[in-house]
């Protein structure tokens, strides 16, 4: 059953076109992530789903019902805002109760709901406090409690963690995921953080300049990014982009990679070789973990400029075909800065992009 469908939605403010034809469909219980750089129109799309703003054209369906002309309060949704938007003059209990009161929920039932939500989010001891007396993480919980009290068909989260410090963010991320697994409600979650996107989502929509660049599962998006933008945006450190020409040597199709010494011809896997395009300029996309350290004389010789140990892995900064690249290797074998290392690219999972259109070749 379709929980949410966005069909050809556009939005313009005067002459500025913010959303340019958005299409998304998700099923009940799915966790949809809208990810993209700041200003790409994520909040605008959220506001349109919530009914706080009207689309310039297009349709929004919630639970198989067109809601374009349905008021926000009647859409059966709840939203958690980036700034939490807690009512500053009310205490936590009143904050949660406000929506219930407005909807004329009987007092006894209100108390029951508040008790249940407070227990679930462990904010029982905070019910009497004002928002100004809470820490960032506590405010976050209260904001979620206010949304949960409604028990809506659809939850909207607009960058709910971006005001928290790094450690709390990781904790709350896990908690939101757990909450979703427990409640099985449909969630639309906006973030500009690609790690949040990868860890939380069932489905990810990557946005840029008001256009969905790719819509798919996290693994699809990681393994087969639709274009250079998606490839560079998802994954940290970012995918390496190495300009090459497709060549043929003795009937084998491959690309030449050059580090410190002579160019080394590397065969492309059949999946990529099929496309042909011999002689054409392409961009080879290789994730940092798709490099291995090889013995002397194997792979491509590269001069290591910087190393960044992160603990489990060590990042090697070097150059291939004149471009900066990062390779992620096991710390035990990591070379020292200034040394020559032999990097063996694993082209089995590599992707190729058209040098001009920047879309992935398949």
């Amino acid at each position, binding site marked *: 059953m379709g929980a949410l469908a966005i069909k050809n939605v556009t939005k313009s403010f005067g002459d500025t076109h913010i959303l340019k034809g958005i299409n998304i469909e998700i099923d009940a219980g799915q966790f949809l992530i809208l990810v993209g750089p700041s200003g790409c129109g994520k909040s605008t799309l959220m*506001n349109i789903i*919530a009914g*706080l703003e009207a689309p310039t054209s297009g349709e929004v369906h919630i639970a198989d019902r067109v809601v374009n002309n349905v008021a*926000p*309060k009647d859409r059966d*949704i*709840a*939203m958690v*805002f*980036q*700034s939490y*938007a807690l*009512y*500053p*003059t*009310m205490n936590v209990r009143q904050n949660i109760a*406000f*929506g219930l009161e*407005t*909807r004329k929920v009987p007092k006894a039932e209100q108390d029951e709901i508040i008790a249940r939500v407070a227990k679930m989010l462990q904010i029982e001891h905070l019910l009497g406090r004002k928002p100004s007396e809470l820490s960032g993480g506590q405010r976050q919980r209260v904001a979620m409690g*206010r949304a949960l009290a409604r028990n809506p068909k659809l939850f909207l989260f607009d960058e709910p963690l971006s005001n928290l410090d790094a450690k709390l963010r990781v904790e709350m991320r896990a908690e939101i995921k757990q909450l979703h697994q427990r409640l099985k409600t449909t969630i639309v979650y906006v973030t500009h953080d690609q790690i949040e996107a990868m860890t939380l989502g069932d489905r990810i929509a990557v946005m840029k300049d008001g256009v969905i660049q790719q819509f798919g599962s996290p693994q699809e998006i990681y393994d087969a990014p639709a274009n250079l933008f998606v490839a560079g945006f998802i994954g940290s450190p970012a995918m390496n982009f190495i300009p090459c020409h497709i060549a043929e040597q003795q009937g084998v199709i491959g690309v030449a990679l050059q580090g410190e010494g002579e160019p080394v011809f590397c065969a492309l896997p059949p999946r990529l070789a099929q496309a042909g395009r011999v002689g054409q300029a392409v961009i080879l996309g290789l994730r940092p973990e798709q490099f291995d350290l090889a013995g002397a004389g194997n792979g491509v010789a590269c001069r290591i400029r910087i190393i960044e140990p992160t603990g489990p892995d060590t990042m090697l900064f070097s150059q291939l075909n004149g471009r900066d690249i990062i390779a992620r290797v096991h710390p035990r074998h990591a070379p020292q800065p200034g040394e020559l290392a032999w990097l063996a690219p694993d082209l089995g999972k590599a992707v190729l992009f058209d040098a001009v259109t920047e879309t992935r070749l398949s």
Partner: protein
Amino acid sequence: MADQSKFWRTVIYGVLFLVAVYYLLPLYVMLTTSVKSMDEIRAGNLLSLPLDITFAAWSKAWSSACTGVDCGGLAPYFWNSVMMVIPAVAISTVLGAVNGYVLSKWQFRGSEVVFAMILFGVFIPFQVLLLPMAQTLGVFGMASSISGLVFVHVVCGLASTTLFFRNYYVGIPDELIKAARLDGAGFWRIFFRIILPMSTPILTVTVIWQFTQIWNDFLFGVVFSSIESRPITVGLNNLANTSTSVKEYNVDMAAALIAALPTIVVYVLAGKYFVRGLTAGAVKG
């Protein structure tokens, strides 16, 4: 080092003290003069403390001093002002709050133009309003009445009160309104339950501002009133200008203090919030 900072501190406090004295001196003279008898005023000097405190001048100023032909003191004028200032302040403040709420949180096509026009209203010299306003009051049948004065003060105060509230509400995040809308609240429920409870500082500023403006107004009071509806400023003027054989300084001073008392009381009661509201950066005025 420490000695030097102590020295400068002393200098600063000394200067502040002198400035304070300079500003308080007129009040001191008024207060002391108002409780002296005429004999003592004639005999002593302006700055001397009263030897024999008497409230006769206050009593006369309140209930029996002559203001022109009738001699009933300031009391009737005072009550006229009270009857005028309370509704005028209340109505202009409430309307300003609603205007500010709409102009900041429920913007509509053209709301910026409306705001610009209201802003313009702040700078209009009130003298140019006198004639059209007199005609308007005539049309409404409110000429020369207290309700007419209330109307004039509400209209002329609206520009400032709208500006105050609008600028304060612009600082309230829009997400709060969005959250409340999703909670099912409408225009008025959001206003009364969310916005108004957050408005204490700006309400205080506006009430003090409006109270002072309206209570101290002389121009409208003298132009748009009749014998029965004259406000206190006009009464004070008449009292001080009524020629008697001797100038009764103590009565004049007491009358001036009576006229000033309500604004002083308002400042003392709410001044703390006034400063807080101003420094919250929410008000230009």
